[in-house]
């Protein structure tokens, strides 16, 4: 299913929205701190308006979100966020093993049925890989990976 949209108009509106959010959050600061950002916000607004105008006057329809399995994108995105947010709670190692494994199984399911055997094989690979990188970063390079509030 291809969807065609007026991306000029959409990106222009998005630009204006972004400019608006940043304008609201600009903080109560002095002239020196704000003169450049003011100019930037103005430019952003100007380009956005130009795009909106182009979108209305000479729209070029483009297909968006057309390629591939869109559900997988949303799924991946969700898994990534949960993975990262979980790190502060249950520590890097656990959330990475969990997140990696869930993502691997999820992505594999687009080609083949994920049998318990496959899932188990994946789990072993995941465990090995996460342990490998964990050791390198935490032990060799002394990067203090979060151990999770739950365990402290």
């Amino acid at each position, binding site marked *: 299913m291809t969807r065609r949209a007026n991306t000029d108009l959409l990106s222009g509106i998005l630009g204006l929205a972004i400019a608006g959010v940043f304008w609201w959050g600009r*903080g*109560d600061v*002095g*002239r020196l701190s704000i003169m450049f950002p003011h100019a930037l916000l103005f430019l952003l607004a100007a380009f956005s308006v130009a795009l909106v105008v182009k979108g209305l006057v000479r729209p070029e329809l483009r297909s968006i979100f057309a390629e591939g399995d869109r559900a997988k994108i949303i799924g991946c995105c969700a898994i990534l966020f949960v993975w990262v947010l979980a790190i502060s709670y249950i520590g890097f190692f656990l959330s990475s093993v969990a997140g990696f494994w869930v993502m691997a199984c999820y992505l594999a399911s687009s080609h083949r049925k994920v049998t318990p055997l496959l899932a188990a094989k994946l789990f072993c690979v995941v465990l090995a890989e996460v342990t490998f990188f964990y050791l390198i970063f935490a032990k060799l390079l*002394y990067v*203090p990976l979060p151990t999770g509030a739950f365990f402290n």
Partner: protein
Amino acid sequence: MKRALLLALSTILIVGAGIAFAGYPDRPITYIISFNPGGESDITARLQEPLLEEVLGVAVNVNHKPGGGGAVAWSEFQRTAKPDGYTIIGTNIPHIIGQPMLRKDSGYETNGFDHIMWFHFTPNALIVRADSPFKTLKDFIDYAKAHPQVITVGGSGTYSANHLETLRLEREAGIKLTYIPHTGTGPLAPAILGGHLSALMNYSMLPAQLGDKVRVLAVASEKRVEALPDAPTFKEQGYDIVGGAFRGVAAPKGTPKEIIAKLADAFTKANKKIAEKQVPMGFVMEYATGDEAKTLVDKMEKAYSDVIIDILKGREKK
């Protein structure tokens, strides 16, 4: 009978506490540095690390958490660090004084630390290029009086030690300069050598590094800096300006005094040994521990307060 019981109980408590604290440290200590690796805070910490480990008997892990001129690490430290002596953080004056006062949402407070020690001091120095027409501080000030705002003075950061000292100089000498902030000390060297600025107000390490390419008009320390024997102090030339960046280490508020004392002892010993590397680089060693540490913070707060109040008043006018 009751008194004996009381005595016994208190003895047990004291001994117990002593044992509990005598157990300190029994695991690695995390030493957080709120600036980038390779910078002065980092190098100092790396020099201290092996010596601290020797004295304390446990591993000391140096961690970097740069961002916001230190504010990101300091705010997170005050929010999350446990006062058990296993997490300490490098601190800097005047950053921890200036930032909470002059920045909204800096996220921490000047008095939210239990200061362990201030171990060195890099005094501010007024520097010009070797071929500059200003041969002495007097030349500089006379010219500034005649031409307000013409002299451009570069320094590291806004509302930092360099900046506040420049404002103080303006106040004490009754002159108007134009201070131009830069990100860190790095960009200052090409700026002065390339003639883009008239002068620099930076730390004593820069002239020690650049040697005879620059001239130091004055240093903001009590006595002359060992690494710069030809540089007169502001005091010698009639201006009571003493200031610069102090570096120290602090623990979260509420850390037991015994632990702080132990850490202070370890840092003092480390300081004595690293002095031989740091003094030639332009540092002035300090040994302000315990109450002296807190007093130093208060003293510097007072010293800069005039200038800071001016800044705040200037902002309100807008």
